[in-house]
């Protein structure tokens, strides 16, 4: 579903944020991206949804060669990918319903589809009863669920999350992670960049660890800290 080969990215200011990344993510996988601040997690996600192109290397997402994509084709790629951020990025002057519907409308969807799809995703994230409220009237967890609903309304095969629980308390965090798990069980490939140790350690999913723009470990059922995972492997 996602494949990176020899991907490097040097920002215009000369910072080498990614350096020779090779990574394969299969259909329906759930992957955590971990690593210190500034090691290139967000940068890697940005390359996947083509906010920018890699300096070198090949990126394939859902069969689309991302790095050679013409500008006019980028919207097509974006419709295959849902993206969720720490700061939600909701429009504050639109209701939950309008925020979610907006994502469909701007792709030129029929009203008929909007009326069918919006309630489906609002129901999935458990926000049906608050669809008429504005983001300012919602808790952080609810806002993030609205953002997830918006990311899913186009039926993407891939959901990218950049620190989705960064602004949330533990109980909201748990809710959001359970929601992501449910979405994953329906077949959506999910990549989550996170600093949340508790989440990673509890879920025991594939963990890709970055350090200084390189992948240093890639474990099938990993922990947040390298030492912990290794000691368990050794003792078990």
């Amino acid at each position: 579903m996602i494949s990176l080969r020899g991907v490097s990215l040097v920002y215009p200011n000369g910072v080498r944020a990614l350096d020779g990344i090779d990574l394969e993510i299969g259909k329906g996988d759930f992957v955590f991206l971990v690593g210190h601040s500034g090691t290139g997690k967000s940068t890697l996600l940005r390359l996947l949804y083509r906010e920018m192109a890699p300096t070198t290397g090949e990126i394939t997402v859902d069969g689309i060669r991302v790095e050679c994509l013409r500008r006019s084709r980028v919207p097509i790629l974006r419709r295959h990918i849902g993206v969720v951020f720490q700061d939600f990025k909701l429009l504050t002057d639109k209701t939950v319903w309008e925020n979610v519907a907006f994502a469909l409308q701007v792709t030129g969807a029929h009203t008929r589809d909007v009326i069918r799809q919006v309630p489906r995703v609002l129901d999935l994230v458990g926000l049906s009863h608050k669809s008429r409220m504005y983001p300012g009237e919602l808790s952080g967890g609810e806002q993030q669920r609205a953002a997830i609903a918006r990311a899913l309304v186009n039926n993407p095969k891939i959901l990218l999350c950049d620190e989705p629980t960064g602004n949330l308390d533990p109980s909201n965090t748990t809710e959001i992670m359970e929601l992501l798990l449910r979405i994953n069980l329906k077949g959506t490939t999910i990549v989550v960049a996170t600093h949340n140790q508790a989440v990673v350690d509890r879920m025991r999913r594939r963990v890709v660890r970055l350090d200084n723009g390189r992948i240093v470990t890639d474990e099938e059922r990993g922990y947040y800290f390298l030492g912990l995972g290794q000691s368990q492997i050794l003792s078990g």
Partner: protein
Amino acid sequence: MQATAIGTVTVTIVLLGAFLYARAVLVHFGADVLNQIEISAYLQDGTSPARTEAMRAALARDPRVLSVQYVPKKEGLQQLRRRLKGEIDTSILTENPLPNMFRVRVRTPELVPAVAAEIRKMPGVQYVNYGQDVVGKLLQLVAVARRVGIAVIALFILVAGIIISNTIRLTVFARRREIAIMQLVGATNAYIRMPFICEGLLDGLLGASLAVAALEVGRASLVPRLVAALPFVASNVVNVNLGSLVPQLLLVGAAVGLIASWISVGRFLRT
């Protein structure tokens, strides 16, 4: 913000329209004068009737020539008498001082100098007169007015375009969060552009409409007073109306709004 853009277009189009109108009046007025020009070709005394007839036929055959009229000296004198009647006692004219002549009219004023020069070279022609000085100056004036017109119009449009595009850029900037989200969820650039293009188009059209209204009010109240105050201005200037200028000015306003917003949004979407 939007009011600034509309106001700028209005001012620009008023200036542009006033300029074009003044030019139209000048060209109209000039053309009026020029179209009445005729070439007077005076013949040498003693030119044979056969020679005169050959000349008339040659001129009538010339495709540039609209009409040729032969005025024998007798008739010329009668015309002169009629014209001077009451001003001068014409009975003092005992001998006819006038030569035989041709009155030649050509199709367009620009042809006058060339045709006159050719007639001058015909054998039997003594001299040719068509108000050389006045015609030359008028022709020059009209040509200059045309050329300056194009330059001034280009300048006006450029200024309006820059101001509209700045306004649209501010609007785009104010809505950058919304645009970023649109891009994130896969809206095409064409889709994102549309409302801004519409706004630019509307600003341009609205500004141009206001300008046309202002111009019409100005023309209707100013021109008759001008004609009354300046008796030498031909009164038919009053009949020069905005006419075909109206759709032209609206088109210019719309085009400026459209192109300026297209460019300013495009620049934003590329980064």
